[in-house]
């Protein structure tokens, strides 16, 4: 089986631009201040991999890590 993607939002870097939430709403949640957190344990369903990379490559603060496990 192909490697699965996992995402993590670095809380020290996130400034709440919310670009990830708009591009991949299934993968991110925002707190009351608008800062992003990965949904659940950050596992990316195969059908959402493109969206994970899109969110990663639009974050102005480079706060999203995508890893392959």
């Amino acid at each position, binding site marked *: 089986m192909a490697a699965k993607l996992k995402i993590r939002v670095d809380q020290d870097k996130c*400034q*709440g*631009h*919310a*670009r990830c*939430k*708009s*591009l991949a709403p299934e993968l991110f949640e*925002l707190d*009351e*201040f*608008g800062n992003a957190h990965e949904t659940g344990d950050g596992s990316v369903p195969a059908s959402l991999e493109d969206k994970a990379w*899109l969110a990663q*490559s*639009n*974050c*102005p*603060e*480079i706060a999203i890590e995508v890893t392959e496990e």
Partner: protein
Amino acid sequence: MSDSASIMPEHPPVTDWINDFDHTDPVWTEDPFPIWEKLRAASPVVHTERFLGCYMPTTYQAVKEIAYDTEHFSSRRVIVRDVRPEITARAPPITSDPPEHKPAKQILLPPFTPDAMKKLEPRVRAICNELIDEFIAEGKCDAAARYTKHVPVRAIAHMLGIPEKDGDLFIKWIHGILELGIKDDNALMDAVKEMTGYFAGHLEQRKKNPTDDLISTLMKAKDKDGNPLTDEHVLGSLRLLLIAGIDTTWSAIGSSLWHLAKTPADRERLVKEPALMPLAVEELLRAYSPVTMAREVMKETTVSGCPVRPGNMVLLSFPAANRDPAMFPDADKVVIDRKENRHAAFGLGIHRCVGSNLARMEMTVAIEEWLKRIPDFRLDPAGKVTWSEGTVRGPRQLPLLFGTN
């Protein structure tokens, strides 16, 4: 009233952009992009003796280094001006540095989340259509005066819980602060005073009859020690929301319509593929970023290898960063479906725009509703497009013709 003694002498025209730049020069106001390219080719950081000494980072990297470095670069002054008077009117969080910045910002953030904006969206759609109703039959309009200006004014008035028709007052004050104020201290002070008086009246009303709008939300908010905010703090925040929220979004919507008016291919594509809107809005924000901020140098340091010294201001040009080809391939081209776009139109680091979700929603809705009702439009060759000067750049006259007439 302003007396003329407070107005600084006119700036001499720029002949040497690299060593003597001036972001209020008419050439810059009209078309800054070739100037930025020239400055970027010269150095990642350039300097001018104007404005009592000011640097400008010209690359995305240099802008980012400064935005992230709150130790050497203070936000206590956020507009580059001819004068540097004692600091009196603070406007937290935009004029705050750590550690004061974060608690001041956290008070403002919850009312501006994307979910909160979804609730406001239907009203903004209605505002756009009410505006379009007023001019569509004429077959043409100055879109800056009759459309793009009123969307943010009415939206923020609605959020604050004040009459939408008071918007014309806001526009006058903001002009005094952001444009006249660069060169005329009295114009700035008068505008701040009038604005404060206006909102003080609204606070008094709400002390007697609380409401559930944004003004009351701020009045009920607690600071980091659990105490209610002082009236002064609430008034400062309200001033800031208006100053930061109106010209900026007016400009962003205006530049977007200007681009679409002169670029039929992009316009037709958006009409046919409305699902492209989210990417298109980000690309228009990148290419025509309206907001240039400032910092004051507090301690000697280097930026991208260039020495910078205290006593100088910094013109923090997010718009120039967003045109840096090292960061964005084809930076000077609008690629309406650009996939990778880490643009800095709303800033970088701790001062990220509080209103970014509001501004995006307003832009999206204003462009969508316009395209639904006026899918075909172009610049009116009989008119002239004019641009605002200084800190916030956008069209202030935008004569458009509708249809194929």
